[in-house]
């Protein structure tokens, strides 16, 4: 770890942030500086998703990956988005004083409590060695290969475990190496810590639109103290990063279903595009997210389905080049060995689904997250907030069934929570993190309806 590496990482992440801010400015605009500050985390993640996906696609089609490309892509995104924003007439955000209310104080306490934990995690990250099996086994070697050779070295990539995994995360790591000036695998952990900080900011910023601070912040802190979530915000693997993309995309899609603001679906599509370039499970999670959206919006299908169809088309176009690349180079595919739909191994079906539910309900991994989420779901249904309950409840259920399907359809996987034997615990992180994002929204819906019912009765 050196100051030079940290400075390089800071510069790179500033580029991500500027790219995302320019995209948000183009697709939605900013009214005030405080609104801009609230959406900084989302901007950061949109910048990573857009710039990272562009780098990845260019690398796959053979453009050499070096420092010029690392700098050129975000610069092009910023300039292109700024020109687009100008044409749409989006002005510069203005200053509006924030009035100190009780909610501001609650948010300040929550931010301070989260800040203390994140500061501690930074100290862990900045001097951590590379201990995680998958990290040194293939994620980081792929990144080092991209950094050193400037391309997807066929011989090297196809010899690694997980060779069909899409390369977005190694590309982001390789960009970090370029920014640091060398493949500093110790400081690389700080990049993942920044992903964690950005995610928490993005989620809190998005939810704060609809959720009162006193409901929101206990759950944001629970993200950090849940055993298998917050403590992993520096680990140089793709699982938690994928979960972050998934949860932010789900919240954006839900908001779009609710208020039909187009920028939300645009931003969600950018995140979903990054998901399919991050991990094989990204395809499954995107599919489940879109199915849940279609079910929750069944009554508005004329409006919703054509737009979801466009999302599917965009995501498919982004996903295709990598699949073509690895098929062309003889790498075995991403689906289960017995095919996606198989009636073999029916004796494994129920144990596989039960395993997924056991993991979902494990307090050892997620603390009180899931029982509280189910309570919130019940309250939302009692409050007749059916659509958020169907969307989020349905999505958590689909993800859990998806986890069961993975174990069922790959007969080589033992039915166990053992991390080295079955990816179910990693995969179910997506469901748990979704619960943490959905619970405040469901509780806020119930609270809002309870208040509205009284006002209605009073009026």
């Amino acid at each position: 770890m050196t100051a030079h590496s940290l400075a390089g990482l800071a510069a790179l992440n500033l580029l991500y942030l500027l790219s995302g801010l320019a995209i948000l400015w183009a697709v939605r605009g900013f009214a005030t500086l405080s609104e801009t500050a609230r959406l900084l985390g989302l901007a950061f993640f949109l910048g990573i998703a857009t710039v990272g996906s562009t780098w990845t696609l260019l690398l796959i089609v053979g453009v050499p990956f070096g420092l010029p490309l690392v700098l050129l892509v975000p610069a092009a995104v910023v300039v292109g988005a700024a020109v687009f924003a100008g044409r749409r007439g989006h002005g510069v955000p203005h200053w509006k004083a924030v009035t100190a209310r009780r909610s501001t104080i609650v948010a300040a306490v929550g931010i301070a409590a989260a800040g203390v934990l994140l500061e501690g995690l930074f100290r862990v990250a900045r001097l951590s060695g590379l201990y995680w099996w998958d990290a040194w086994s293939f994620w980081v070697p792929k990144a080092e290969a991209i950094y050193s050779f400037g391309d997807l070295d066929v011989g090297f990539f196809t010899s690694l475990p997980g060779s069909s995994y899409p390369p977005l995360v190694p590309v982001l790591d390789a960009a970090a190496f370029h920014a640091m000036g060398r493949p500093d695998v110790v400081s690389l952990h700080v990049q993942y810590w920044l992903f964690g900080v950005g995610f928490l900011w993005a989620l809190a910023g998005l939810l704060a639109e609809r959720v009162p601070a006193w409901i929101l912040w206990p759950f944001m802190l629970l993200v950090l103290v849940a055993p298998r979530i917050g403590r992993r915000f520096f680990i140089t693997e793709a699982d938690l990063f994928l979960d972050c993309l998934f949860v932010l995309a789900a919240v954006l899609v839900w908001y779009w279903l609710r208020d039909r603001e187009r920028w939300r679906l645009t931003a969600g599509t950018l995140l979903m595009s990054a998901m399919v370039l991050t991990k094989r499970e990204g395809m499954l999670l995107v599919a489940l997210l879109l199915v849940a959206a279609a079910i929750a919006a069944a009554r508005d299908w004329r409006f919703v389905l054509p737009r979801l169809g466009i999302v599917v088309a965009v995501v498919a176009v982004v996903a295709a080049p990598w699949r073509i690349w690895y098929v062309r180079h003889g790498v075995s595919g991403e689906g289960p060995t017995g095919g996606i739909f198989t009636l073999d191994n029916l004796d494994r079906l129920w144990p596989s689904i039960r395993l997924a539910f056991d993991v979902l309900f494990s307090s050892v991994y997620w603390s009180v997250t899931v029982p509280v989420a189910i309570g919130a779901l019940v309250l939302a249904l009692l409050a007749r907030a059916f659509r958020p309950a169907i969307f989020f409840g349905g999505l958590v259920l689909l993800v859990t069934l998806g986890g069961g399907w993975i174990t069922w359809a790959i007969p080589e996987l033992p039915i166990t929570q053992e991390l080295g034997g079955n990816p179910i615990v990693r995969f179910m992180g997506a469901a748990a993190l979704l619960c943490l994002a959905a619970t405040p929204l469901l509780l806020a819906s119930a609270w809002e309806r309870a208040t509205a019912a009284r006002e209605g009765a009073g009026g």
Partner: protein
Amino acid sequence: MRELSWWLEWPAGVLRVGVVFLVAVALLAVVVRYPSVLDDIDDTAAQNAALSYSDREIAGGNGLVADQTAAHAARALIPKGDTYHVAVNPDFSAGSDLTVRYVDSWYRYFLMPRRPAETAPWVVCYGCDLGAYGPDAKVVWQGSDGISIVRVGP
């Protein structure tokens, strides 16, 4: 303060009580876990800071390489553009249970940008049969536990 009826009326009051209860459960979980998580983070940060440069550099390889100096020697001796091969005797007994199966994977990460190859001018030998590499094979580094680095050919 709210009146009691505000919390008891049906169904809005019950919903409010439910929301407050669930937020309280989440908050309680945070309050209970926060100090131990913070202690745990502090301990891990202290452990990481106390690591030697070599321990931090080898990290996940500490359970595999048997001898850290072998890894450093391999990096120092094998030029960046060259290829290498990790040859492990199945009966190699030093290191851990994982060494024989996985040490070559770890070298693949650690020795980047040097590429692994079946026939390579450099061999990282874990108790391997040096005679198999012919008379031109030259041991350029010899460590403990039968680990050596061999230059094959001229």
